[in-house]
């Protein structure tokens, strides 16, 4: 046998044995019993000390706040989201204090304007929205409301109204196109404003024969844009051409 073979064989044997030993000693015992993970992880995680109590626990002692929150816009935001894990506090309320997030930076974690949040989610621009004052001086964190009914649609539809002010439609009020009841500003999801439904609506200003301001650009309603709705091509809050 050539000299090379036994030498390489030893080398590879060391590698293979090393691998087998490493596998034997490093792979946890219960690995793979259930799935591609260590089955005992479930019990060892379950055995860890609890740090969250759950909002029902808090209600035992802070019943007023708990009721208040459940009836408010924050009904979906649990106590410990804001106050941090409270299991220890629930057990020894006098020894363990829970912090309250009073600084202005906290609320914008959820309420800062972010285009990926759903439309209608209450959002503000923290730099512009009543700067320097803590949020709590105007909004109760356990029952948040705008302190007064906002006048401007832009208070809640900031992006649309900002866009409109730099568009050709700047002179048009929102209510020209959206018939809006006052109640919409108080319970926006229950009372919805109207929206234009057909081409004829835009035609009231833009049709060739429409009875409107002379400087409004005209189109032939019968042929322009075929059968599509106008807003499939022109964004009504920022109409562009071409």
């Amino acid at each position, binding site marked *: 046998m050539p000299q090379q073979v036994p030498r390489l064989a030893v080398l590879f044997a060391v590698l293979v044995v090393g691998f087998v030993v490493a596998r034997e000693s490093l792979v946890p015992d219960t690995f793979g019993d259930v799935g591609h993970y260590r089955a005992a992880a479930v019990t060892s995680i379950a055995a860890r000390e609890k740090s969250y109590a759950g909002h029902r626990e808090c209600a035992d002692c802070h019943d007023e706040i708990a009721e208040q929150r459940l009836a408010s816009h924050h009904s979906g935001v649990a106590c410990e989201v804001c106050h941090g894990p409270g299991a220890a506090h629930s057990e020894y309320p006098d020894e363990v204090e829970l912090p309250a997030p009073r600084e202005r930076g906290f609320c914008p974690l959820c309420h800062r304007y972010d285009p*990926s949040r759903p439309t209608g989610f209450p959002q503000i621009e923290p730099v512009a929205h009543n700067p320097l004052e803590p949020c709590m001086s105007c909004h109760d964190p356990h029952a948040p409301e705008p302190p007064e009914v906002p006048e401007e649609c832009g208070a809640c539809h900031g992006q649309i109204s900002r866009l409109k002010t730099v568009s050709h439609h700047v002179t048009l009020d929102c209510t020209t196109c959206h018939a809006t009841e006052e109640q919409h500003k108080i319970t926006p999801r229950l009372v919805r404003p109207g929206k234009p439904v057909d081409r004829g609506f835009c035609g009231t200003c833009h049709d060739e024969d429409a009875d409107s301001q002379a400087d409004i650009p005209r189109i032939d309603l019968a042929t322009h844009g075929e059968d599509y709705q106008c807003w499939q091509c022109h964004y009504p809050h920022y109409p562009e051409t071409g």
Partner: protein
Amino acid sequence: MQGYIYPNEFELHWGLLVVLYPYITGLVAGAFILASLERVFNVKEVQPTYRLALLTALAFLLVAPLPLLAHLGHPLRSYEIFLTPNRKSAMAMFGFVYAWYLTVVLLLEIWFEYRKDLVLWARSERGPKKWLHYALTLGATDLSEEALRFDDNAGRWITIIGIPSAFLLHGYVGFIFGSVKANPWWSSVLMPVVFLFSAIVSGIALVLFIYVAASLFRSKPVDMRCADKLAAFLFYAMIVDFSLEMLDFIHRLYESEESIEILSQLIQGPLFISLIVLQVVLGTLVPLIALGVVSPALSDRGVSRTPAELRRLIYLACATLVQIGIFSIRWNVVLGGQLFSKSLRGLTVYKPLLFGTEGLLMASVLLFLPLVILWLLVKVLPPWLDAEATE
């Protein structure tokens, strides 16, 4: 950003480092396949680059997993992929392909190739170098006719196993992308094949570049027969690679699925520079024309005769352009596939960072590192013909 993209598409999950990874493995596979072809088909002219190609493959192979480690961010856990492999995951199985390729193919082939020289060097040297070379022989110092014949045979067998292994190594990288059903830019059975041929192109260009540049640095004459032959190989490989890519392209155009609209916007928009300008024009057409004219690929002495000094420089320039082109291919595949929305209605942008584990600095370090390793390897295992020991 333009049009409509989903919120979770705003940030690209696979950045510059994931571009680097297929680029580097491509160089490994390419350099190795070049070496193998030289050996299997016994091409005499390119003999001077056989060992160089093997060492290049090794240097780049050692660095190949590093971009992934940096990208995943848990290098200390990386060994677990070997201990508890998920057999249904192509990515997990790759660990074994890598280990196989490194130990069984590349290191063994280099060992058999160098064993005789190692023994002779160990005999004639003194000091630490002697011991290093002796250790590398593993004590197998038999230089009899029979033992040397065994080296040669073993090397040939490993080469024959090595070619499919190298195909697997890089085909796998294409496979990872090609099998993403939901992504119209990636999903294509041609992907592994296209990846392979672009790997071969990049590997040949790299070896050509290193060979010519290293000869100039060492102020040794460049063996022009060798450089010419490599350049001709490069030309042929590029023709095949380019045809495959065109085939893929035409196939997509002809199929004209609903994604074609956004893909054409992608090509005309965010990928215009890297795809049309860098990949196709500078990285493929310019070097193809230049090589076609000066290299002996089309006619024995080249379509137009050029003095050796000029030809050398043209080869260096072509090899550089090809590298830029292949890097752009990886860029276009990896990033391009994430630049358009799954809604097929919007495009986003990629801005590489400078610092951080995924930044430009990290990427340049990882690109430079294989060259440092190669330099060290060349110190220990000189691949030049003039360094080969004679009895």
